[in-house]
């Protein structure tokens, strides 16, 4: 699908390579012409980051979407990076397996794009994030050469872990072309519970969930206007899940227990989809992602509340929220800082973008990040200017 603009920049040309060879030729030509290369996946987060700083070409990677190898009994899969997440999950589901990362808008998002932005969702509390599942990776460098790291086995320490480096790199180090993932068997059972909660009881619920004998895979707090609602997810084998649901009920005080609802399967699915896609809702012009120290999550939500809907992933300290404009951003960034973390904007009108607004407080290791970028992409070919510190 053609991309009309990359955060304000009209691409000089657009390509949709169907093979690594074609991609290589595109990169070499752009490099020789002094143009930048802007990789594009499912276009769910094309606007993330600062506006591009150099004219260049757009490369749509959705044509590189083949499954290379799926030895299901080894619980690994090797695929080209342009595969859509939903398609990947459908292939895994046939073997009763999954990649337990709740990437928003999976029908559109590609695996490569998800890795580049380090997409995650509610179940990260129980299962971790993409960095825990990418065990092998191939990228294409500024010369159009493929380089790889890791492998196809679940445990491997040969060579530097470029999988970690690429995850969350916003495509600035090279174009991700192929990925090997470790996958999981689907849990035998799952239950999703909702608990509407008066503001005054939120702290009590958090304390109970912090000490509960149960082991939720997701704890989400949604705050929208005056409403506060927890969702708690359990996944394991059936006896374990049944016990956990009963146990959580018992751990809640009477007043809250009566509000606790177990969602029937189709309702649960709807909830999960809504929560998964929440960060990319397009109902307001500005969306933030805050990352705070886990125990400060509620404190941050209180300070951010009232401006727009917020979804907090408890246990991980991740808070997504929508805002009508950028006015409150500096204040929220200060609050995130006081809560031990940072705040970035996932979405923001191009005209309102500044380095500080989009990426928050610069990290102490920024100089080293610049050195890494300079060594791996010396011509500043890939997504120039869009990442932290203007990398």
């Amino acid at each position, binding site marked *: 699908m053609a991309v009309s603009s990359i955060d304000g920049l009209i691409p000089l040309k657009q390509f949709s390579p169907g093979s690594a060879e074609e991609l290589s030729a595109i990169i070499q030509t752009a490099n020789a012409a002094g143009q930048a290369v802007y990789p594009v996946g499912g276009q769910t987060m094309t606007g993330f980051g600062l506006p591009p700083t150099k004219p260049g070409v757009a490369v749509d990677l959705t044509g590189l979407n083949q499954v290379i190898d799926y030895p299901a009994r*080894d619980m690994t899969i090797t695929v080209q990076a342009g595969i859509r997440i939903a398609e990947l999950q459908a292939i895994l589901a046939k073997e009763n397996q999954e990649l337990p990362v709740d990437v928003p808008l999976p029908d559109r998002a590609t695996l490569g794009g998800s890795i580049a932005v380090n997409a995650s969702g509610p179940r990260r509390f129980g299962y971790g994030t993409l960095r825990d599942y990418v065990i092998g990776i191939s990228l294409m460098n500024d010369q159009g050469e493929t380089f790889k790291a890791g492998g196809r086995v*679940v*445990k491997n*320490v040969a*060579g530097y872990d470029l999988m970690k480096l690429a995850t969350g790199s916003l495509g600035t180090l090279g174009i991700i072309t192929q990925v090997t993932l470790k996958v999981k068997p689907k849990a035998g059972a799952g239950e999703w519970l909702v608990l509407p909660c008066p503001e005054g009881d939120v702290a009590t619920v958090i304390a109970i969930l912090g000490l509960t*004998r149960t082991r939720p895979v997701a704890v989400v707090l949604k705050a929208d206007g005056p409403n506060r609602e927890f969702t708690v997810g359990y996944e394991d084998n059936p006896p374990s899940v049944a016990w956990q649901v009963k146990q959580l009920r018992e751990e809640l005080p009477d007043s809250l227990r009566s509000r606790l609802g177990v969602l029937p399967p189709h309702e649960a699915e709807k909830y999960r989809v809504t929560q998964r896609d929440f960060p990319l809702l397009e109902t307001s012009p500005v969306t933030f992602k805050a990352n705070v120290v886990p125990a400060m999550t509620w404190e941050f939500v209180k300070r951010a509340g009232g401006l727009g809907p917020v979804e907090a992933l408890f246990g991980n300290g991740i808070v997504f929220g929508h805002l009508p404009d950028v006015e409150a951003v500096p204040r929220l960034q200060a609050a995130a800082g006081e809560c031990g973390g940072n705040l970035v904007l996932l979405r923001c009108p191009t005209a309102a973008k500044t380095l500080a607004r989009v990426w928050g407080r610069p990290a102490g290791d920024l100089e080293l990040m610049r050195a890494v970028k300079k060594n791996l992409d010396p011509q500043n070919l890939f997504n120039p200017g869009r*990442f932290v510190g203007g990398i």
Partner: protein
Amino acid sequence: MAPAASSTLIDRLRPIVGAGGMLTSVSDLMVYECDGFTIEKTPPQVVVFPTTTEQIVQIVKLCNELNVPFLARGAGTSLAGGCVPVGGGVMIGLSRMKKILEMNYENRYAIVEPGVVNKWLTEACRDAGFHYAPDPSSQGACTIGGNVATNSGGPHTLKYGVTVNHILGVEMVMPDGRVIVTGGPAEDNPGYDLTGVIVGSEGTFGIVSKVWVRLTRNPESYRTLLGVFATVDDATNTISEIIGSGIIPGALELLDQLILGAVEQAFKFGFPLDAGAVLIMEVDGVNAGLDDEAARIEAIAMRNGAREVRRANTEAERLLLWKCRKQAFGAVGRLAPSYCTQDGVVPRTKLPEMLRFIRNVSERHSLKIANVFHAGDGNLHPIILFDERDADQVKRVFEASHEILDQCIALGGSVTGEHGIGVEKLDFMPKLFSPTDLGMMVRLRDAFNPTNICSPNKMLPTSGGCAEPSQISAAKPGRRAAV
């Protein structure tokens, strides 16, 4: 022997760490000429034991000024020669930086100095119901700094992941003396995941001086089973079927007959000595779900020809079983004067084939090979028994090791699952990676360690190609014992 340490170097180091914080005599330095990989040896010029980050900074700056290489050493349990000071230089021992600086249960992390021993950390948080998940068999000795550098695994990494999945951030003294902090208690910090790439960099990116580790809640309960099998094949088939059935055990470890004999002599657990192999199969989690899983595992084992499946009925029995497993390497000393532990990985469904190959190698080279390993991950540890006084045996040990590792590659695996490349496996890197791959890795290293003054000649071969042994010995003095 390395040249005597220049008096200038020692004189300038003394005010930094004090006379009691350094070793300089030839006999003291001999202790530090190698780590758990004893085939290659070179003593450092001097060993220093800093107690603060600031002291490390001063040591590193001095090394830069005098152009002397340096490297970190934790407990020296590395099995890949990560601590061999190739070309001499200054060894920075972290064993005196052993404070646990903060335990934060509310946020599930701890901040520790690099010399903290892995097991101390788990012991320190046991009463609060937490543990530090990566549990290498050497956990009673190895340090968190060493674990970070090698990205260690252990029996329970099958379910809980390796070191990198549990490190939130590090403070590191860079090879030029700058101090950087990456990551921290908050997840998803914007920017490159430098923490993730520092873990597993085998000490070639700098000296890690502080670590933010994740703490994991203890499982509510365990079921620990011991499957007894007549043959190794029956055991490996059981492994494939357990994993294939959708159960992820907390741990799945195999011990073969040879190692069982040694372990039984040492710990008197009551292992059946006529068994071809045993599997330690542990499931953990919410108690309510475990009987089901244990029953399924037991049925799979029986279906695959297990003679019997025993259960650890008490916590004491469970702990003894794990002690037998974790100290199995130590018990090997009873079998032969020397042994070489290999570390290879294959896709788990290839385990039966791989173990048959190892048996074949053992017969062809007339070498006894014992197996005790992280079976659920496909991570093999064949232990080749020999007598290092017999040059011919030593030669055969090399050949056997190389054949085994080459076969791991041929089956789609890797030459190291957790011990690292170090100096031991440099020659295998070009077999796993193309010149472009290695070139990009060199570029990455250069971003951290551009002059290669920090732990030189580790992890990445200096040339892209596959060097012959004779060239290696000429180019790398630290490697002469290898050929």
